[in-house]
């Protein structure tokens, strides 16, 4: 469900409408590492890595492009449309990290498309001198030369040294048919190409240590969503990926590359649930002079630019990530939203309460004329605090009937209507934890604009009321001992940063993003490390450590 669709559902039905459809919630607060002695058992490190997964669409395309080289780049571009949506049936960056939504298996649509695409790619490659030379076999094709080519190509396609028995089989086929294209294609049809398979080496208890090539693959796909480059490949060949320090050097190098930086931007977009296709659905009168399409486009650019700025230029901390007021408007709309004059994309300080990645236009945009209080509260619970939200339980009680008088927006501000509609005890079991967080963000409307009034428009889209904005929120229930009341969104951010949960959640979300799976009990060591780093280290270090840590060498047996 898109964010907007979810929003519509929530806005329209609030608590009552969910009685039968059963979303909400039970707050389950995860253990806070610092609040208790470490639970880390080094012998369990890496055991959460259990299953293979297939490449995502982006990884797949980048892998093909790298494999076939610049001379066949256009061929790869032509091949990708052969893969229908269902061939890669999960979003490029899954937002909810549900295990069943992750790209584990290869689908039939994928296989069909792969056969079609690989047929043409292999045919072109077999006749392309540049490709052949790239793998050590310029024309004419003689057996020894073909052997070299197949050894090199298969190794890169399967991301591991070529098995000699496999090579011998391919060469026998070459002797029989002389059809190089079919040999190249066979290599692409191996599951070792489409999937990230890890055989591992020697077992150590219930774990198995990965080979250097397998470590290289993990590094590469986590950092740049593509196959190992030459430097990383050489390191694997030389056995130079044995320690965390050795790994770290490559992770730092790769993350700082353009592909790595793009990957980092995708992570933060994913964390903030920014859907580039989503838009606010506000009325014309509500929007006023604001060109909302242009605003949203620029807000996305501003978000990405801010991430780059904090991570790479400022080398900022998690605190900076949430509090820095630097903005990068490239449009009059966004400049006005941030209360600044310039709109040339240069950094400025916002004069409005916008700050960090949370109180930023791209994150805040979305909703109807009425701001999405509940959705924002749910977002903060799930994505910023990593709380688990369970299902509603009315214990057989019938929700109270709403009195229309209390729903009249010309009389009541939005937050009062939300409070009224979620007033039942059964609703409040969840909404007590959701609503206050949303109330604190009421100073931002659905277009992310700062406001002091809750403006109401009637059915004809004419102004019918303007209620003063109230951003005070109580009973925040962030965590035991944390600040429980705030007067503004800025104070809410302070409260979140004072807690351990935001930092723990940052590390957890990063782990899920890198591993493309739900975190598990055996991830506790890494989560503790990430939590600690999120308190004091730079975001860059947090990102690097998310990959370059002891877990990268292991998988469960």
């Amino acid at each position, binding site marked *: 469900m898109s964010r907007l669709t979810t929003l519509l559902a929530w806005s329209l039905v609030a608590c009552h409408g969910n009685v039968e459809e059963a979303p909400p919630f039970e707050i389950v607060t995860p253990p806070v590492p610092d609040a208790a002695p470490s639970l880390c058992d080094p012998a369990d490190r890496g055991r959460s890595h259990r299953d293979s997964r297939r490449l995502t669409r982006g990884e797949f395309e980048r892998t093909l492009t790298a494999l076939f080289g610049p001379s066949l780049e256009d061929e790869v571009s032509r091949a990708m449309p052969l893969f229908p949506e269902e061939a890669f049936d999960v979003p490029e960056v899954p937002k909810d990290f549900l295990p069943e939504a992750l790209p584990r298996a*290869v689908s039939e649509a994928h296989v069909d498309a792969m056969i079609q695409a690989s047929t043409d790619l292999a045919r072109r490659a077999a006749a392309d001198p540049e490709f052949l030379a790239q793998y050590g076999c310029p024309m004419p094709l003689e057996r020894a030369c073909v052997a070299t080519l197949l050894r090199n190509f298969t190794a890169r396609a399967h991301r591991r040294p070529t098995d000699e028995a496999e090579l011998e089989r391919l060469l026998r086929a070459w002797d029989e048919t002389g059809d190089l294209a079919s*040999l190249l*294609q066979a290599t692409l049809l191996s599951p070792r190409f489409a999937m990230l398979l890890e055989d591992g080496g020697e077992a150590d208890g219930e774990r198995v240590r990965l080979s250097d090539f397998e470590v290289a693959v993990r590094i590469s796909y986590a950092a740049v969503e593509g196959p190992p480059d030459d430097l990383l490949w050489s390191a694997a060949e030389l056995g130079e990926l044995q320690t965390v320090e050795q790994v770290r050097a490559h992770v730092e190098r790769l993350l700082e590359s353009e592909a790595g930086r793009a990957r980092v931007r995708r992570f933060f977009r994913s964390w903030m649930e920014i859907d580039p296709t989503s838009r606010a659905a506000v009325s014309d009168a509500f929007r006023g002079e604001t060109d909302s399409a242009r605003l949203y486009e620029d807000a996305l650019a501003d978000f990405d630019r801010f991430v780059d700025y904090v991570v790479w230029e400022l080398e900022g901390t998690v605190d900076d990530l949430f509090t820095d007021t630097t903005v990068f408007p490239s449009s009059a709309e966004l400049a006005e939203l941030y209360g600044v004059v310039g709109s040339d994309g240069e950094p400025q300080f916002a004069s409005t309460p916008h700050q960090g990645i949370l109180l930023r236009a791209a994150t805040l945009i979305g909703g109807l004329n009425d701001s999405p209080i509940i959705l924002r509260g749910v977002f903060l619970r799930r994505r910023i605090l990593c709380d688990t939200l369970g299902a509603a339980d009315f214990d057989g009680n019938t929700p109270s009937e709403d009195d229309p008088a209390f729903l009249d927006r010309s009389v009541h501000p939005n937050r009062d209507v939300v409070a009224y509609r979620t007033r039942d005890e059964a609703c409040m079991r969840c909404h007590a934890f959701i609503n206050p967080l949303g109330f604190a963000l009421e100073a931002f409307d659905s277009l992310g604009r700062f406001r002091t009034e809750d403006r109401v428009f009637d059915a004809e889209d004419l102004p019918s009321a303007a209620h003063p904005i109230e951003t005070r929120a109580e009973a925040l229930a962030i965590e035991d001992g944390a600040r429980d009341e705030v007067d503004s969104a800025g104070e809410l951010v302070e409260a979140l940063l004072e807690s351990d949960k935001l930092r723990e959640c940052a590390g957890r979300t990063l782990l899920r993003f890198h591993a493309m799976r739900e975190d598990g009990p055996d991830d506790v060591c890494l989560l503790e490390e990430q939590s600690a780093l999120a308190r004091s280290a730079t975001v860059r270090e947090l990102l690097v450590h998310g990959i370059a840590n002891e877990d990268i060498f292991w998988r469960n047996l």
Partner: protein
Amino acid sequence: MLMQRGRRHFIRGVAGSMLAIPFLPSLSRTARADEASPKRFVSIRSLYGQPEQLFYPGRPSNEVGDHVRHQTFAAGDVISPILGETFAPVAHKLSILRGVGLCSGDHNNHTMLAPGPRPEGQPPRTRTSMDELLAQSSLYDSPPPHRILRAQVRTGHGYSWRDGQRQPYDSVVALYRRLFPSSDVEDDATPRDLQAQRALNLALPGVERVRDGRQIGRADRERLSNYLQMLSDAERRLEARRQRLLACSDPGLSGTVAAGPGNHERHADRYHLYLEWKNAAYDTLAELTVAALACDMTRVVSISASDFGSRHGENGSTFHQPSHWTYQHRDPSDPGGDNIAFVRGSDEEARVLRMYRFVAGKVGRLMSLMDSVVDADGSTLLDGSLVYFGNELSGAAGHHDYSMPIVVAGTAGGRIQPGYWDFTFSGYARRARNRFFSAVGTQVYANFLVTLMHALGLSPDEWESVQGGAGFGQIRVSNRYRFGGPSGDWSFEEIYGDNVTGDAARRRTIPYWFTDGSTA
């Protein structure tokens, strides 16, 4: 696994009524094993009207409704003198309809079924024929290589309809070459498939090895098994497609094809040569039809078997002369009279019978040939098709259409109920002067065509607004239709009841025969 096979010649050495087709059955079964068989329509327009006493078997004894009698045939039954031995293998799959009349075309090639060539000087035909309608209907789920294949046996001419244009060919042989251009599939036509097959054959053992690896987890092993299965399935599909292309690239025809291209004019006045050519032309056409249908190059075939006007009847006569004049115009004093009583059992009738049997025999052979090819769903090519042999003229004697001779083979996948269906009007009695012999039917020919289209899966909106008319199912009654009865002419209402007017009548199907009900 990849199978190396040479080019197949699937209809080589055809002789006798049951034909050996060594390749197509297995080809079809493997080629589209998971697909439903497409529905197909073949029409063979016969010589003129049929002499009813030689065409139909005796009246069925089983009365199943008002003016409806029925009997079934068993495989091996010889149905009638004209519908002879070549129909016997498929007799149980035949529908013989009697008592279906009121055609809204006429006998000068204004046929609703499939138009023949227009006589010189006549205005172009404006109505959409049934094969043209089918060609652009939902019968095709994707554009086929040829929307219609048409052949004119008399001249040997054929043409296909591609992309809205008719492409003529000088002979059925030329048409055959157009359909199945000779090519070396293994080296040229399917190099991509061959490469992919080789690649899959190489990849499959590797997948197995990965799956069976020592340290592969249970979930991964399952995923790899699924992946292996998907690759294996893909390989099988490729092999089936390759075999299909191999066979359909040049399935081979029987040796008689060498007789073409045969222009009948070459054999003018040499009847035995003409007969030899004609024999070859029919055989070639039958094989061509089966190959084209089996390879899904078309789903609509129209064959005109009419030799009307040809000078190649026995003793240099036209076919029109013996088939029609023998019965109707023989007595100069009564040119419109029905002379059937005078010729029954005569040499003249024997000659007529030989001619009709010849053509019908070829039609029976085509039906048997279709029945020997197994289709995608395990049924035969004939089972999923409707093969209509008939003419939009009734008996051989009169220029009337009270009861068209109709033979339909196949059931379009079970949509019609085979057997002998007699819908003649029970109250009919011949007129005093024996002017007409035909029985008068209670069913309308337009409804017969509509039934065919229902059975082929078309919806009424596909046939009700065709170019140049109110659409199929529309019945045009002219004053040509007068019916004899014991007390004079019968009225339409007495014979056809509500079967001729209104939307319901237009969409009406032939009762009992159509198994899905009587209306759309």
